């Protein structure tokens, strides 16, 4: 399995590769694109300036550095575009290809068809936005030229194992660390980056400094009563739609549902909408099963994370894969991963898992 790490600036490329990254991915949000379409309609599903390279010159530098270590660079062009955007999108594609990127991450059917029609020869990775939940969808994308499938977050371990085992002749990739979105990426139509437009460049500052990551890190170490109270503070009331601290009112048409149950249901739903739902999950314990199933790559999410966090993630994965190469029992592997997690991040994982369930593979 290859470690696929995010990049948002050329200067972090070498350190990530030295730490163990075997593939890199990134996006470009150029000033010209932003002026025309704003960050909300980013060309690559990361709507924050801080998540992206600033221009294709930076991409060229990333590619040159990575290629000097024989590491491929994958460019994300995985938004859903409209016809209006095609002139600018064609330019993005052309400039991206000129830099020598090794593959594209694509979600949009139109762009896939465009690339096929133009006879552009480059490996195509179908983004998690492509919503691949079954083997027939893999077949659908293969016919359109896909060389790799990136699975959605919303799979159980047995489902991942089954779909990876069934997929022949195509690379399979899964998210493994960070940003466990509660909604299905490719079916979610909330816009990110609205606040960057609303509040202007000042909104970029916390993200550029990685303050959102540090804040969540602090919250994670606090007793749950305190972290829960902070995470509901109105100070954070303008972040992403899935973190909004909604007022929740429950209703039921069933006579069997009394007030007590309605209030319990309200509380339960309310608990899922706050800043804490942005805590970074981890799926590294599942590598044992992913490897046996034949997973090709594991992706670290968090293009805007500080380089220090990215390095910790890569080193943690590298150590876990090194240990796995010695063919430990599943129990020993899980124990190793949990201890390594604690050593790497200085707090226990808290079993905030990316994926749940255990496959029926007979190891």
């Amino acid at each position, binding site marked *: 399995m290859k470690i696929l790490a995010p990049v948002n600036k050329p200067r972090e490329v070498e350190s990530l590769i030295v730490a163990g990254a075997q593939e890199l991915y990134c996006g470009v949000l150029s000033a010209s694109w932003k002026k*025309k*379409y*704003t960050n*909300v*309609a980013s060309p690559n599903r990361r709507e924050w300036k801080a998540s992206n390279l600033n221009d294709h010159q930076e991409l060229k530098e990333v590619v040159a550095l990575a290629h000097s270590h024989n590491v491929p660079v994958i460019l994300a062009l995985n938004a859903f575009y*409209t*016809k*209006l*955007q095609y002139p600018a999108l064609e330019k993005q594609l052309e400039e991206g290809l000129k830099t020598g990127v090794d593959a594209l991450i694509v979600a*949009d*059917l*139109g762009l896939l*068809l465009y690339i096929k*029609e133009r006879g552009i020869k480059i490996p195509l990775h179908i983004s998690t936005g*492509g*919503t*691949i*939940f*079954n*083997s*027939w*969808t893999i*077949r*659908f*994308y293969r016919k359109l030229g896909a060389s790799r499938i990136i699975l959605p977050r*919303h*799979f*159980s371990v047995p*489902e991942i194992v*089954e*779909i990876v085992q069934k997929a022949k002749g195509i690379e399979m990739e899964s998210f493994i660390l960070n940003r*466990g979105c*509660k*909604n*299905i990426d490719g*079916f*979610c*139509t*909330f*816009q990110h980056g*609205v606040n960057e*437009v*609303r509040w202007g460049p000042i909104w970029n500052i916390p993200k550029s400094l990685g303050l959102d990551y540090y804040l969540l890190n602090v919250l994670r170490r606090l007793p749950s009563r305190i972290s829960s109270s902070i995470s509901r503070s109105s100070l954070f*009331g*303008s972040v992403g*739609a899935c973190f*909004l601290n*909604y*007022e929740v*009112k429950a*209703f039921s*048409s069933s006579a069997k*549902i009394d007030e007590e*149950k*309605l209030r*319990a*249901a*309200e509380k*339960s*739903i309310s608990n899922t909408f706050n800043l804490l739902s942005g805590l970074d999950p981890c799926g590294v314990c599942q590598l044992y099963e992913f490897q046996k199933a034949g997973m090709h790559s594991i992706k670290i999410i968090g293009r805007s994370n500080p380089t220090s966090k990215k390095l910790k993630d890569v080193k943690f994965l590298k150590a876990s894969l090194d240990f796995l190469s010695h063919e430990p029992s599943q129990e020993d592997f899980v124990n190793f991963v949990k201890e390594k997690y604690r050593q790497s991040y200085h707090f226990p994982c808290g079993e905030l898992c990316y994926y749940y369930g255990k496959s029926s593979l007979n190891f």
Partner: protein
Amino acid sequence: MEKAALISNLDNLSLITSQHQRLYFGPEFCQYLLPSSSELREALNFARQKRLSFTLVTPFVTDEGLKNLTPLWKVLKDWKKPEVVVNDWGVLSFLRENYPEFPLVLGRLLSKQKRGPRLLNIKDRIPREMWDHFQRFYLDLPLVQNFLSQMGIRRVELDNLLQGIKREPKIPASLYYPYAYVTTTRMCLTNACDQRTQPLRSIFSCRKECRVYTFKLTHRNMPVPLFLKGNTQFFKNKRIPSHLSELGIDRLVQEVEYESDFYPAQ
């Protein structure tokens, strides 16, 4: 203008009225709500008795969900002109290969409209061209239209966007009302909501709490209330555009089941 009624639960057949000429039956968002063969037969019989045209609505599915759809195709193929709404590229691909005679409809999960209500918060701060972009979607591309046509798609399903809709009306469209979906999940928030003992985020076995509970979510930064039904969030927009024919919309799909469920929340 054809008027259809959408339900996923047979108990709600009573919500179909004489205004409706077509029955949409089935879940768009959750494979656990797929009907059994006998339930599908009952819905088809109801449609036959009431002289309604029939559309089977299907959700996005895992391989397990695909297996569960198999008996439904067998029931459906005995029906005259059985239209199927697909919300999954795999289901589309499967039907194209195995049941090419079914007229297919591209569901609203695949129409990729830009629905997030917070767009209204930035309307005055974005270039005019951007607003146009948010009203449109990828189906305007001739490449896409041709491809979908080759795949057997005869119609597309649209939501009634708060920012308005613009489109090139090459493929006929249906407009769902009065609710537009915004997002959906497999980590169903409603599951076990009144007795939470499991992790907050996971894929649970289903006890169909969605048929019991509805939630209204409000926040000062969300321009309109959201309604959570099962695994999916919606907003309401009851202002139907006046220029439906210019948009190529020749069918209205009334979400009678949601209207009934969300009624106490309004």
